[in-house]
């Protein structure tokens, strides 16, 4: 605890840095102000301390090395480029390029490659009489002649025209309507047995 009324030079020197920073309480500041008015030595110390703080606090005291900014800019650019520092616009270019390539390849493939049906069950028919009555049922996308043993879920079967069936996405049964399948992908000879079986079953 400093006795403010009895401030000697040593006590002033101990607090002079805090005084310059405004970090002393009001009574101590008043006592130091009074001391500086009467003590030439301490006034000199105060003035010199202020000079030090003011001069070294000036930015001009130190120059950065020549080219510092240029080298920093270069390093920043290098860091930003390969790491995750891209903006969304920078990402847009490669993403768009990938999309264009993918679309282009798909478009090209649509002309060059035709994927054959994996099953004759998926083959479309040809020359089917549009008004021919056929049977469809739930759970299957195949239409049949009435009485075909391969009709799925007979409880839900209903009769419509071939035109309606085709419009609704149904394809002819490879058993009972085989004669309308002209894909060239019809199976081996044992299918003939199935055809005979179907035809006989429908009374043809």
């Amino acid at each position, binding site marked *: 605890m400093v006795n403010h009324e009895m401030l000697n030079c*040593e006590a002033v*020197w*101990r607090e*002079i*840095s*805090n*005084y*310059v*920073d*405004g*970090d*002393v*309480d*009001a009574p101590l*500041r008043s006592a130091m102000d009074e001391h500086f008015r009467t003590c*030439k*030595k301490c*006034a*000199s*110390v105060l*003035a*010199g*301390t*202020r*000079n*030090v*703080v*003011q*001069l*070294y*606090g*000036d*930015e*001009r*005291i*130190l*120059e*950065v*090395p020549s080219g*510092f*900014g240029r*080298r*920093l*800019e270069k*390093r*920043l650019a290098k*860091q*930003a480029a390969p*790491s995750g*520092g*891209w*903006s*969304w616009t920078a990402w847009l270019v490669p993403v768009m390029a990938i999309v264009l390539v993918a679309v282009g390849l798909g478009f090209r493939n649509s002309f060059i490659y035709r994927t054959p049906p994996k099953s004759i069950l998926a083959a479309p028919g040809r020359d089917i009489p549009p008004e021919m009555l056929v049977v469809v049922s739930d759970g299957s996308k195949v239409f049949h002649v009435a009485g075909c043993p391969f009709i799925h879920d007979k409880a839900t079967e209903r009769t419509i025209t071939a035109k309606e069936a085709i419009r609704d996405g149904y394809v002819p049964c490879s058993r009972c309507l085989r004669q309308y399948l002209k894909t060239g992908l019809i199976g081996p000879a044992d299918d003939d047995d199935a055809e005979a079986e179907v035809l006989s079953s429908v009374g043809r």
Partner: protein
Amino acid sequence: MSEPDIVLNNPAQATGGTREQELILSVQRGQHELFYELVKPYERRVYAAALAILRNEHDAEDAAQEAMLKAFANIRQFRAEARFSTWLIQITVNEALMRRRRGRTVVMEGIDDHREGEEGDYVPRDFADWREIPSEALERKEVRQRLAQALGTLDRKYREVFVLRDMEHLNIQETAEALGITAASVKTRLLRARLMLRDLLAAGWEQGWFSRLPFEKGTKPW
């Protein structure tokens, strides 16, 4: 507490907080090309902080630039409640201290006054009449070199505190946190650093360092 006796030349205040805040937000949102504009006003301060710790111009530049790159990489973590300049300086101090600990740089130590302990009182040696040095004196390269030379003779523990507090304008608590010491130690070291520099520069005046400055005959700047 009363207002500070000296108005510090704080570039963070001079550059205008609003523009700086705009730049920070823009960089955080992805306009990374604006980062250099954001840190350019602090180039000198960042370099000075690194130099105060590493005492080698080449190492100081490398550490300062590495600190700026780290600030760039972590800009999203910066929160507006802190001053950007303080955040940047603290990153720089950490980088420089880390390099010094790793021994990647040879630090030329200053002259330590071993006659007195840190807690002991420092007794000023020169009590000449004084006259304020005009800030224009800093335009002269010779003056800047003399001031840098005087700073370089301080022992590391005084130099670091002085640079962070009086050149980087960190407050007492920020300086203490950056260096990992107590606020009381910061105040003690700062007092000694200021008084030692005052004496060193007074001696320099005797040797004619500032002989071409416009001082009145018979007065000293310190």
